[in-house]
């Protein structure tokens, strides 16, 4: 479904990705792991056109042209960035409505489905999104991404700043969305342990390059992965 070929990315004159290639199959959950500064977030940004990049990125067979992030969203890729990208000044409901921005026609059924995963949202429709707790905001971001009915979900560090209980919950929801709705997910995570439990495959980035890749089970057992990212 998604293919990156020798993608390079730049922040101004600084090169952050030095030829990253990866693949995400349809209906799979793929994790991108690595230390801080390895280029994980940059990879997602390269896909959603929020950073300057070169190299080929193919989505469902056809290339994503460089340009604005709006076009990428319209092609069915939902990017939940670091910091969640929720609109703190708007209400919970308005945030959800924005998720449906690119959709035409009735989104009622989709909203119903979203609410089934996040029932608490219904009660808090009019609450200002900025007053939600961290965990709730993350879930709102996820819910909003889901309303978009994307073909591919890009998640940037969903566990960041959340209590372990919440993190487990969020990953459980991700897994459920994948299994029940067939949602393809590319998730960037520092919490390698959790990510490898949920994902089918993973890529390990180091200094802007792919250092390792493979099925999660393999990586979990891999010597260097264990030492560097799993702590044992």
């Amino acid at each position, binding site marked *: 479904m998604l293919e990156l070929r020798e993608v390079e990315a730049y922040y101004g004159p600084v090169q952050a990705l030095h030829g990253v290639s990866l693949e995400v199959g349809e209906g799979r959950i793929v994790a991108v792991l690595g230390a801080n500064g390895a280029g994980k977030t940059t990879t997602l940004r390269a896909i959603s056109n929020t950073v300057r990049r070169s190299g080929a990125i193919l989505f469902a067979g056809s290339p994503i042209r460089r340009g604005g992030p709006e076009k990428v*969203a319209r092609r069915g890729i939902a990017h939940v960035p670091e910091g969640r990208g929720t609109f703190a000044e708007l209400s919970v409901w308005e945030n959800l409505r924005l998720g449906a921005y690119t959709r035409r026609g009735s989104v009622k059924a989709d909203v119903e489905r979203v609410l089934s995963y996040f029932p608490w949202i219904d009660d808090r429709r009019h609450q200002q999104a900025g007053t939600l707790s961290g965990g709730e905001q993350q879930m709102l971001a996820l819910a909003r991404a889901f309303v978009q009915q994307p073909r591919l979900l890009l998640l940037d560090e969903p566990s960041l700043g959340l209590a372990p209980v919440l993190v487990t919950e969020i990953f459980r929801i991700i897994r459920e969305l994948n299994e029940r709705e067939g949602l393809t997910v590319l998730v960037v995570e520092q919490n390698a342990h959790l990510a490898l439990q949920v994902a089918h495959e993973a890529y390990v980035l180091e200094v802007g390059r792919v250092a390792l890749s493979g099925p999660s089970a393999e990586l979990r057992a891999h010597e260097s992965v264990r030492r560097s990212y799993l702590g044992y």
Partner: protein
Amino acid sequence: MATVETSRQPTLADRGRLLRGALRPVNLFLLAAAVFLVVGSLDSEIFAQQTVAGLSQGAVYGSLALALVLIYRATEVINFAQGELAMATTYVAYQLIQWGLAYWAAFFATLAIAFVLGTLIQLILIRPVQHKSVIAVVIVTVGLFILIDGVVTWKWGADIKFMPAPFGQQVYHWGGVAVSRQDIGTLLVTVLSVGLLWVLFQFTKLGLGMRAAALRPAAAALVGVRVNRMLAIGWGLAAVLGAVAGLMTEANQFVLQPSLMQAVLLYAFSAAVLGGLESPAGAVVGGLLLGVFLNLVGQYVHFVTPELRLPFAFAVLLGVLLIKPSGLFGRRTVRKV
């Protein structure tokens, strides 16, 4: 399913906080002002007269102020050319009438033309410098001011022109207070345009997109909002508001000349700052307050003769910026370190 930590449901304490919020100094002040105006109007006919006239003029200041706030919220740009653009579109209406169109047909045609002009200006002139320094943007809008002023003077000349009165000349007398159809009409038109805009922003998808684009452009782009397009539309709508303000100003002043909106622009700036540059409601309320306040001061404070009206508005502007820079309804601080 593990229990998720949630924020509390509204409790009694929250409702108490809500009440205290409603009784914020700002709202109390507005309430007091409203009471003052009503009592004064009942007491003195001249007072009522000035209040009504002030509201009508204030509505015009408020709609131009709203245009300024719209643009500022979306792009953090203060459009110094807003008044001149409003003036130019009024001249367009004048020309349409000269070519035989009826007033109201020309009115609506002008609004459409204003929209197009506003979007074009944003696309061609503002977009390239939007992300550059404050000074660059200020200078482009200043250049635009000069350009528009020049084009209008070149095409139509600096002499006075006349346009038909949109609401007729009739004056009603209610218990000694003379209220012209002009005043009522102005109030209605501006309230209607502001109201329509409000509906657009609060209840339509487009409005939501525009708000999102203004608040957080990066996040908005990620959900598929065409941010640049929203900005252009924002400028277009601001130009429409400006056109309304220009046309109503012309109706109030009875004459049309290139300097039509220069004073109004200052009043609009003062109103916008008074209301809080980030607050649309503030712009409108600020405008009404300023209009009434200027009239009353001009009436009752003998030192403030008509020549001092502008300096007075300047004093208000300066005063607000020094005392409470975020204005009546604003929240953010003025100085961003």
